[in-house]
């Protein structure tokens, strides 16, 4: 071992051992630091996931609340009014003047029929059985039939591409968005022409609702009181769809929705 060769062997052995120990040390340190970082990252991910679930639940509850408000408003403004008027007519019946009484009874019957129709329409619009049993297109056609009955505007509806059944939840939400868009047209737009287009394309469904009404400023409409647009936005987000409103005062409004399959 005292010979030069022996010394060289010892030297090589020592250097090799030191190198291996250094390498092992380096690997252990990197693995430890990385694992610590990974654990922090996992905790962050879990926190983000929990927050996202909370937001989702909150959005669903808000949508539910708005639906209840919509029902309440419709019952109060339309159905309630018709029934109240019918009741007033019947309370003021004077059987001593038979022809007048007959008129009032007939008018009351008309009002009650109107109330019943509205109630039936409201029930049908909220009931998702039509979509469940027939699909999205018949449900949209029903909405359009309702709109035509109001004689508000000239409505056209077109479907292109191969019809595809999507998951029920998405179709219900798409219908609710269309209903909201139609409600806005009826209440605010003064439109004379409404075009609804449904396009089944590769990978996604594209919906467009366009009117030639008075238009509005979308940015100004995005306030907490403007629940309709917020409602549509939230519903679109829930089904992973891209939602867009294009409008400006005097140029009409286009609502676009792109839903992935």
């Amino acid at each position: 071992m005292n010979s030069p060769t022996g010394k060289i062997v010892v030297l090589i052995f020592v250097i090799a051992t030191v190198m291996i120990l250094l390498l092992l040390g380096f690997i252990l340190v990197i693995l430890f630091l990385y694992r610590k970082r990974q654990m922090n990252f996992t905790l962050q991910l879990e926190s983000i996931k929990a927050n996202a679930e909370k937001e989702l639940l909150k959005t669903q509850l808000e949508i539910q609340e708005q639906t209840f408000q919509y029902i309440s408003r419709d019952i109060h403004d339309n159905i309630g009014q018709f029934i109240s008027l019918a009741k007033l007519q019947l309370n003021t019946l004077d059987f001593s003047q038979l022809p007048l009484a007959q008129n009032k009874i007939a008018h009351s019957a008309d009002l009650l029929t109107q109330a019943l129709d509205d109630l039936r329409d409201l029930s049908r619009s909220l009931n998702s059985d039509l979509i469940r049993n027939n699909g999205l297109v018949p449900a949209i056609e029903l909405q359009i039939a309702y709109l035509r009955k109001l004689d508000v505007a000239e409505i056209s509806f077109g479907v292109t591409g191969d019809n595809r059944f999507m998951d029920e939840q998405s179709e219900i939400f798409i219908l609710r968005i269309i209903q909201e868009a139609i409600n806005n047209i009826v209440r605010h737009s003064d439109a004379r022409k409404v075009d609804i287009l449904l396009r089944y394309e590769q990978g996604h469904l594209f919906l467009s609702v366009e009117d030639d009404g008075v238009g509005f400023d979308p940015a100004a409409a995005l306030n907490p009181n403007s629940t309709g647009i917020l409602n549509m936005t939230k519903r679109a987000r829930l089904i992973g769809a891209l939602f867009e409103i294009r409008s400006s005062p005097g140029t009409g409004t286009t609502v676009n929705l792109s839903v992935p399959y």
Partner: protein
Amino acid sequence: MVCTLAALVVSIACYRRHPSMRIFPYYIASSLLSDIIVCVAFLYYPGDFLLLAITSISRYAWVVFEFVALNLFILRSVGSPSWKRIIRINALAFFVLLILAILTIPYLHTHQVYYFTLQSAFLVPPCLIYFYRLFQTSNLRPLKDQPAFWVITGILFLKACSIPLLLTIYLMKGYEETVFTINYALYSLLFALLIRAYLCPPSNAQSVTPEDSIPVSA
């Protein structure tokens, strides 16, 4: 030699397991071939002019091939486009300097070890970039199951230790063989880590980079 052969066998057996490591069977085979040529030349035909020329050319070729193979692997393992650009610039700088050195410094023709030193110096920064990016992003896959970690650790260790060794080789009169032995030991460590990399479970993703994950702020 044993480690090299073992690494070659494992790399061929696990060729399909890790698509990102498909360059390594060729790398290991080239290393083996280069060593065999040098060994045969110096042991059995010392002083033969033709063999000297062949070994000289094989050394030049090996310097370039090793750099390209290892650099490509590191480039693939770092996903960020801006850092990839830096690695490419680093590679370009290496080739420019190498060509300049061959053409302008005659001293190096008889001291080819310095080409390896130059190559090592230009392989260390990409390895450091990889480790820097490793801690810039977060990946749910455990580090010990990422082949790139093992391979690049081996490359960094080999090249970082080679630089001082090869720079001082001509100062250590009589100890040149010792230095080369240590250098071969470093290569053995690299091949051992290559074997470890091949034993990692296959990934479902096409590439296994730290970038296949969410970047988080440091």
